[in-house]
Structure formats: C-alpha cells, structure tokens
C-alpha cells in the first residue's frame, strides 16, 4: 500500500475543512445552521478544526420552533459556551406572534415548514450571506443534486434546474446584493460516515441518540415521544419503551426506533445493519415524493 494516502474519513474531513475555509474566505458574514442534530454537531466540530488555533470565526444560528427536546437545548447551550462562539436564535413562536407565519391545523400539523419564514427572516436581519448546513446528499433524492455552494435568490429560493455547475474544487460564491448562499461541507458523507466519525473523534452528542426509556405513542410505524403537544387519536395509547432517535428534529415529528444501543459502538453496529433510511421516521418527508424539493425551493435547508 502506498504510504501517502488518506483513508475515506480523513479524505472527507479534509474536503469538509477545505469547504469551510472557502466559505470563511469568500463571504463577509457566514454562519453555521445549528439544529442540535448530529450532522450540525459534526459540521461545528469540523469548523473547530478548520480554524484552529483561532475560534470558529462565525456565529451559530438556531431556529427555535418552540417544540424542542429539552435535551437538545441543554446540549446547544453547553456547546456554545465551550466554543466561545456567538449564538443567534430565530424564534418560530415570534414569527407566529408577528403574523409572519401561520400555525398549521389538522391531524399532521407541525411547525417544520414554518421554520422557513423564521430562518429567512433571521438570515436577512443578521445580514448573513452564507448559511452553512449539515445536509448530506445521501439523505434524500432532492439533496442528491445539491451543490457544495448552493445559490439562493433574493427571496431565499433554490432553483434546482438552474444550479451553477461545480467543477474540481473550485467554488463560485459570487452573488448580487440581497442574495445568499447555503454551503454544505459534508455533502459527500453518508449516515454511516457521520457515525463512524463521531466514534473516531469521540464527539459529544445529545443523550437522545442513545437508547433510553421513554413514554411513546406508536404512530405511522414509528414511536413518537409523548410531550405536551401530543394529541392521541382513536386507538392510540401511551406506553413505555426503550428507544433511541436516529435523527433529531421537532419533538412533534421525530420518531424513535426500538433499540438497546446505548454506546456509540453499539449505534455504529446498529446503523450498519439497519435496512431503512434514517428519514423514514420523519413524517415531514412522507407528505409526497418531492416534499423535500418543494420545501427546499422555498428556502428550507
């Protein structure tokens, strides 16, 4: 074997650090979109490495839907303190109060889509010109066509049919006034890569990812956590199960799976054996074949 080579995680890390440094160099006011989920935690970890020994030279943005897991919020506050970075919070509740966003009604109501308004308002009011996200191309078919540097027009919209070609490692972040970019440093990572990297780098993640006992309701083939927003339907009941979450979103739409994986090693084993995608437990993606593309066009990440 040739001595001068990187293994796949080292190569993906080097690529992500390159992208993060390009963002810092090409934009005036970049920010990292931080959801408290594992992907944005990994992006933040990579940013720490990319700019060391300097601090991460950009704030974190958290879009607070009001429907959070308390564990996620605690984790966020602790990490921000540790890194010494600025935290910008966009509140969905405030957008609703101001009449900028309207609460969904009906059985499948969630605040997932409302985040778009709050996110775009937050980007505009803080004059953010590049929002860095932890989206991966393997997650979803609309994301499979995303660029590392993804252009958004003055309305924050994505035009998938008119994307800038991206060749070699040359990223074109030129834009006109009012437009902004989304940047995705871990585009080429898979769910497996993210978990292996978390294990290798010993990155702290919210306890929700590990198996734990919790009150849940079985709905649409997944275990939804019981919380104050839960409305039981006919035939449904609350039970206690040992579960863990494969992705983290709003508490109202994030389903867990039965699991006894309570260490990172066990999670990696479990993920490598699992036969369904991680977003299979997310009700926001099940609305139609192209629901992710439709939300992304409007400004979702």
């Amino acid at each position, binding site marked *: 074997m040739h001595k001068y080579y990187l293994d796949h995680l080292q190569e993906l890390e080097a690529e992500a650090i390159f992208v993060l440094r390009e963002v810092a160099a090409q934009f005036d006011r970049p920010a990292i979109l931080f959801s408290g989920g594992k992907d944005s935690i990994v992006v933040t970890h990579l940013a720490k490495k990319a700019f060391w020994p*300097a601090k991460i030279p950009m704030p974190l943005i958290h879009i607070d839907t009001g429907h959070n897991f308390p564990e996620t919020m605690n984790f966020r506050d602790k990490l921000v303190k540790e890194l010494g970075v600025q935290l910008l919070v966009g509140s969905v509740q405030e957008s609703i109060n101001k009449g900028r966003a309207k609460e969904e009604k009906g059985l499948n109501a969630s605040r997932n889509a409302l985040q778009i308004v709050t996110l775009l308002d937050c980007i505009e009011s803080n004059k953010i010109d590049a929002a860095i996200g932890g989206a991966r191309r393997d997650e979803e078919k609309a994301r*499979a066509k995303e660029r590392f540097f993804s252009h958004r027009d003055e309305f924050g919209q994505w035009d998938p049919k008119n994307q800038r*070609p991206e060749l070699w490692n040359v990223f074109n972040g030129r834009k006109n006034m009012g437009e902004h970019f989304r940047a995705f440093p871990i585009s080429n990572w*898979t769910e497996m890569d993210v978990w292996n990297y978390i294990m290798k780098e010993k990155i702290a993640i919210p306890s929700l990812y590990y198996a734990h006992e919790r009150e849940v309701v079985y709905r649409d083939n997944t275990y939804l956590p019981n919380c104050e927003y839960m409305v039981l339907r006919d035939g449904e009941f609350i039970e206690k199960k040992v579960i863990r979450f494969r992705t983290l979103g709003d508490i109202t739409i994030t389903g867990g799976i039965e699991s006894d994986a309570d260490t990172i090693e066990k999670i990696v084993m479990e993920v490598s054996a699992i036969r369904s995608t991680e977003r299979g437990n997310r009700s926001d993606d099940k609305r139609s*074949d*192209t629901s992710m*593309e439709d939300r992304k066009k409007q400004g979702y990440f």
Partner: protein
Amino acid sequence: MELLRFTTAGSVDDGKSTLIGRLLYDSKSIFEDQLEAVKNSSERKGLEHIDLSLLTDGLRSEREQGITIDVAYRYFATPKRKFIIADTPGHIQYTRNMVTGASTANLALILIDARHGVMEQTCRHSYIASLLQIPHLIICVNKMDLVDYSEEVFNKIMEDYTEFSSKLDVNDIRFIPISALVGDNVVNRSENMDWYQGATLLNTLETIHIASDYNHLDARFPVQTIIRPHSDEYHDYRGYAGRVDGGIFRPGDKIVVLPSGLTSSITSIDTFEGHVEEAYPPMSVSITLADDIDISRGDMIVKENNMPELTQDLDIMMCWLNAKPAVPGAKYFLRHNTKEVKAVIKEVVYKIDVNTLQRNEQDKEIKMNDIVRVRLRLTHQIAFDAYRKNRSTGSIILIDDTTNETLAAGMIND
C-alpha cells in the same frame, strides 16, 4: 478504507440505471423504504417492473419527464472501499453535466450495448473522460445476455474500441463483459461466460490502484485564508490555511510564494491534532513560515527547486457550460484554485466535434456544450501546471461578471 470517486455517463436505454441499481442493491445500499417508495411510484405509473432509475432521478421535473438532467451523486460501500458515483446524463446536450461529473472522478464507467458495439456516444463519453484526465476507464460491454454471451462479439468490440482509443490520452483501460439486468460479472462471477477470466466489475472497483492518482512530485499549496487567533496563547500565530494540491511538504523546506517570488522556509505544518511531519494531497493543513512576508489568499506556496509556470496568457481546452454564448472581447472573472483575476478570450483556435473528434477551425462561435481550444489573456499572472500534470493547479473556471453564473470550465494545455 479508501474512497473511490467514479462517474457514469449514459442514456436511459443503455442500462446505466439498471447497472447502478444493481451495484447499490447487491451491495445492500438501497434501503427497504427507498425500494418501497420506488415500487409504489412504479405501480402508480402502471409499470410492470420496478423502475430503478426513480432512485437517481430526484427532481420533480426529472420524474415528470423521466430523464436525468443533472449530476446526481450516489453513495455505496463494501467492506473494502467506499464509493461516490457521479451519475450524469449521456445525451450530447448534457455534455456539460458529463464534464462536471468527470472533473472529480478517479475512474469512468463507460457502457457499450453488446448488440450495437462502439457508437457515437461511446466515443463522446470516452473523449470527455480523456479530456478531463480521468486516470482509469472501465468499458462495460453490457447486455451480453442478448448476444448469447458470445466471446466473438466481446472481442470485436474490444478491438474496435482499442483502435479508436489510440487517439485518446488514457493509460488504463479495462474491458468487462456484463449483463446488468441478470447480474453477470457485476457483483457475482458469470456462469455463462467461462471464457472470461478477468475480475468482476465490483472486484475491479474495489482493487484498482488509485493511491498514485495524485501528483506527489510537484509541491503546490494554494493559500485559502490566513489564520490569526489574536489570543494570548497564540498572539503572534500566523498560519496559511489551505489544501495540498501536489507534492509533499515538510518542516524546513525552502519555499517560494507565487506570484510575488518572496522566499522563506516552513517552520511547522499544523492541524488541530498538532504538528505533522509531512503534508501531501489532499490534506487540509496550516503552514507557518520562518519569515513574516506578505502572503494573501490566491497566492501559491511552492518549493524552491520545483516551480510551476507563471503567465498572463493561457492556452486551454474549454467546455462552455452556459445557455448564454461566449462573447468575443468580453471580460470574465477567471477562478484558478483560490485566485481570481479577469480574463478575455483572445482567440478561438478550433472547436472539437465530440462525436468524431474532428477539429473545426472555421466555426468560431462558442455555445453551450461546445468544447473549444482557446487562448485567454489575463489581467494578472497566475502560477499554473499543465492539466495533464495536475488536475487542480491546471484547471480554471470562467464566471459572468453580471449574473455571477459559472460559464465555462477550462483545462490548461502543456
């Protein structure tokens, strides 16, 4: 585990989607819910079989029209390697997508329908792979089941292709007879072609030697940004952050900064984990120097005894990517690595017919998907290598100065 990036080009009917579907499915990279969704969509459309192309064709307009219009990236892994597929449409009007997909690939898969042999599109895909200097080509002669697994058919195609490919600039070409539909020689060895002694497609993808695809001779380090912590602990720290694009850097190396020509030596090569003794492609590191000299983004750090060329005049092969044709005399932004200058197209030397490789010196118009040889004049000097020597320091893009769209991709000639 190594990472192999490969590209596939092809049209709907040559079995490309089926081949990718089989690689993903047989390597257990398609999840049950993805397969379920594709099954449901296929049933709704009234199809009798599962349409695996629905896995890759993700955009609404693509699903409506049933065509791939963009580059889609797919991922799968075996215990031996991790793979990234850049899946691109193969029609001539998507030459630009093929070029984009090929730009980051170590390897290209080219499909030939065993019933039809070497066709115009085989020629086009191979030319693009060679133009973009993809180091390895695998020619899959597909649909062998439809020609009775005939060795003569396979040999004839291999002969025809070898004759045509002598005009191309590719060193490593392999041929594999397969049937993507039935699965012969894709993941599992075929029981129908005992005359073929070579490796299966997956086995070839897993074992092909790619570690020397990078240039390890000519040390090149384009500066992305400068790290200055301004903290008490690192008060005077000044690290030049970037990614090694060639060669091997070590502390103590005598270096030259281009284009300024200022010299110094490397004090340390830093990463978050600490100092490293060697930096080589494609590592992202920070370099500190012994002297406090003027260096900014876009400069290139190289070693004293191995210099790239400096120029304001470039001779390039260029693929035009935008619907808006090139305008003679117009000024464009030119991005070379991390450096940006302005450029004007001085002369169109010839246009290539990508189906026949014929040069046309009369037609000077540059439209979308055209591949042309042009001469550019730049406002400032850049430090470059020929694309043949280094795909990273030998490539450029052109950007529109009003819409900011990426207009063209260029490979610098020797």
